[in-house]
């Protein structure tokens, strides 16, 4: 009898826990706007997704709901986020979005994190006629698919490499060594970079690639040190950024300009690299000093998520949400109308004016950022700069 009652207690406790887990029945007058998305909370994509993307989704829903809800052509409706973990697995991502669009029939979908995941979801969303505005997709091939319902707010390889090369030339750089990752991102960027360098008469003294998950690059870096270039360009992303920066410092490879591409703008790069991060350049778009809107966004992000947004794609994620919000306010939730509005309208966002040419966003130029005294300053192009580039980089 004793064990039986204990079991009953346990069952009751489980049942109560189960009930608590159910979403509460709101007594709102207007129906909620259902927003479906997957983000990687586990697996290899999780660090990127949880730095750059999902915190913005949570912040957006929080802010909009605190203000009474999403303005749907004048009617305020609360946002209901339906966000699930995609385990960094492509098939799970495709399946989840199919569920959102066909079974759940959500009102809006927000994109997953990363270029590969966007490749998988974009055609499915296009087929079901759901507009998708993506912040973390970086591939000319994806842009070239010309999917009418698919938009990317992030700068693509060409403008980013153009900004880098212009900045190098403006600082009198004559020679570089280049390291890049063996993947689509590395190859597309290197493909854009080389002709641009050639056009400016900058010589490539050494060019090496390395595989994902590499654990030691000191041999490659020693070779580059021997070549003694004016600048180093790394088409890299975390965790190799940490590896390359750390090992360059160890072996005393100290070019005047040191550029590592993605993830340099992550706050964790500054924290992990400490003083070595000072003067490092990388892909960036903004910082809180850029404008009042940027400062407001930065503070709200820190207040809700207890951590800083990254200085590149985080703001592009936020801008994508602003675009959705402005679109819904204007044309409501009719997806065809939303798509047409996004395709032809110029939007005011945290990054300034944005507008699309096909899939690609063309309002925000390619930029270069540099860590200076704990802030990722925009140093190129001059029209967007928040500080002057510090060249040469100090190494001690």
């Amino acid at each position, binding site marked *: 009898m004793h064990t039986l009652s204990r079991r009953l207690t346990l069952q009751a406790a489980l049942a109560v826990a189960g009930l608590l887990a159910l979403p509460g029945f709101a007594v709102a007058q207007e129906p909620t706007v259902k927003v479906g998305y997957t983000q990687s909370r586990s697996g290899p994509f999780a660090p990127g997704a949880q730095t750059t993307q999902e915190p913005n989704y949570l912040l957006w829903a929080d802010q909009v709901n605190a203000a009474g809800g999403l303005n749907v052509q004048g009617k305020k409706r609360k946002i209901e986020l339906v*966000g699930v973990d995609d385990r960094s697995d492509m098939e799970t991502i495709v399946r989840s979005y199919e569920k959102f669009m066909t079974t759940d029939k959500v009102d809006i979908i927000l994109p997953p994190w990363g270029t*590969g995941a966007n490749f998988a979801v974009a055609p499915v969303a296009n087929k079901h006629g759901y507009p998708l505005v993506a912040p973390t997709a970086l591939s000319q091939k994806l842009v070239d698919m010309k999917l009418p319902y698919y938009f990317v707010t992030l700068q693509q390889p060409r403008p980013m490499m153009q900004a880098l090369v212009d900045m190098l030339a403006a600082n009198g750089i004559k020679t570089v060594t280049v390291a890049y990752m063996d993947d689509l991102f590395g190859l597309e960027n290197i493909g854009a970079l080389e002709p641009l360098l050639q056009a400016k008469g900058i010589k490539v003294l050494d060019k090496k690639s390395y595989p*994902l998950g590499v654990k030691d690059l000191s041999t490659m870096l020693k070779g580059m040190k021997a070549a003694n270039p004016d600048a180093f360009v790394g088409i890299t992303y975390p965790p190799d950024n940490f590896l390359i920066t750390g090992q360059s410092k160890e072996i005393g490879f100290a070019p005047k300009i040191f550029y590592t591409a993605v993830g340099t703008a992550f706050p964790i790069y500054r924290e992990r690299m400490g003083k070595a991060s000072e003067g490092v350049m990388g892909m960036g778009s903004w910082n809180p000093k850029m404008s009042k809107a940027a400062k407001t966004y930065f503070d709200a992000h820190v207040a809700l998520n207890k951590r800083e947004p990254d200085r590149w794609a985080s703001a592009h994620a936020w801008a994508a949400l602003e675009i959705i919000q402005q679109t819904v306010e204007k044309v409501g939730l009719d997806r065809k109308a939303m798509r047409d509005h996004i395709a032809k309208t110029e939007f005011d966002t945290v990054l300034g004016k944005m507008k699309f040419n096909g899939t690609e966003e063309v309002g925000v130029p390619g930029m270069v950022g540099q860590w200076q005294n704990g802030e990722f300053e925009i140093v190129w192009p001059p029209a967007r700069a928040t500080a002057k580039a510090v060249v040469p980089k100090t190494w001690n």
Partner: protein
Amino acid sequence: MKQGAFVFVAALLLAALPVLDSPFVQSMALTCLMYAGLAVSWSMFSGPTRYLSLATSAFFGLGAYCTAWGLAKLPWPVVIMAGGLAAMLFAFLIGLVVLKLRGAYFAVITYGLGELVKHSITHVEKTYAGTVGRVMTETPSSNVVYWTVLIIALLAVFTYVHFGRSRYGHALRGIGMDEERAATLGVNPMRVKLIGFCLSAWFAGALGAAMAVRWTYIDPNTVFNPFIVFQTVLISMVGGPLTVAGPLVGALVFSLLSEFLRLSLPYLYMILLGVLLIVSVLYLPAGIAGHDWRAMWARVRRKRFGKELRDE
């Protein structure tokens, strides 16, 4: 025969699933079938021999890359066959060497060779094709992919049953029990193991070839994902690799359960899944299908109601 009829009816029902016109139900079924096919083919070799192979991801990835290379030029069935054959060829080549190893050494080396293939493909693609990721734009419809995966999974079940009953199946079980004794009794262990290993590889390769088109874009890290082999082994273990029902039940239970938990408890499901796995390993060592449920029920009844029964 009753089982055969059951499989036949189930196959007919599954084949008719696209009638429902529910992409989510269909892709759920697709995932189940993919893992069912992978787990059945894995169990085909690793169940009877007790050689823990972790090469499934490599087979799967090779198949996927065959699709990426051949889809534009070859008809769909040929692409699938080629994917399976590429995996089979790879299994044959590595099998000649690694099947001499046993236990943990075999598991580790099969896993390591998977990594080797991944990096080799990266290198070849970069050097000769100037790319790493592959985009597939002209893909067959999702119904075609679904039926293809269904056929491959059914073929795997059919092969498991018939191969298991054949001379080779008996020899494989003999090797699993005692390899030296089997050899003394006239079995050529290397030859038999190689046949089993290659046969099981074909299905993983063909499934990789069929699934690749679902994601529009593939790169070595998505298709040579170790997650695929870990999940396959878990499913086979949870279901029980010694009968064909084991991996099938395992795939069904595991896919549905993990999907249900992922969608309903997005922040807790990993923990729950982990607990469930530990429980099933501790209390169901022979797997769901291999477990003697009747004996367990009898034991529970004796313990719980034994006193009341005697009172009556």
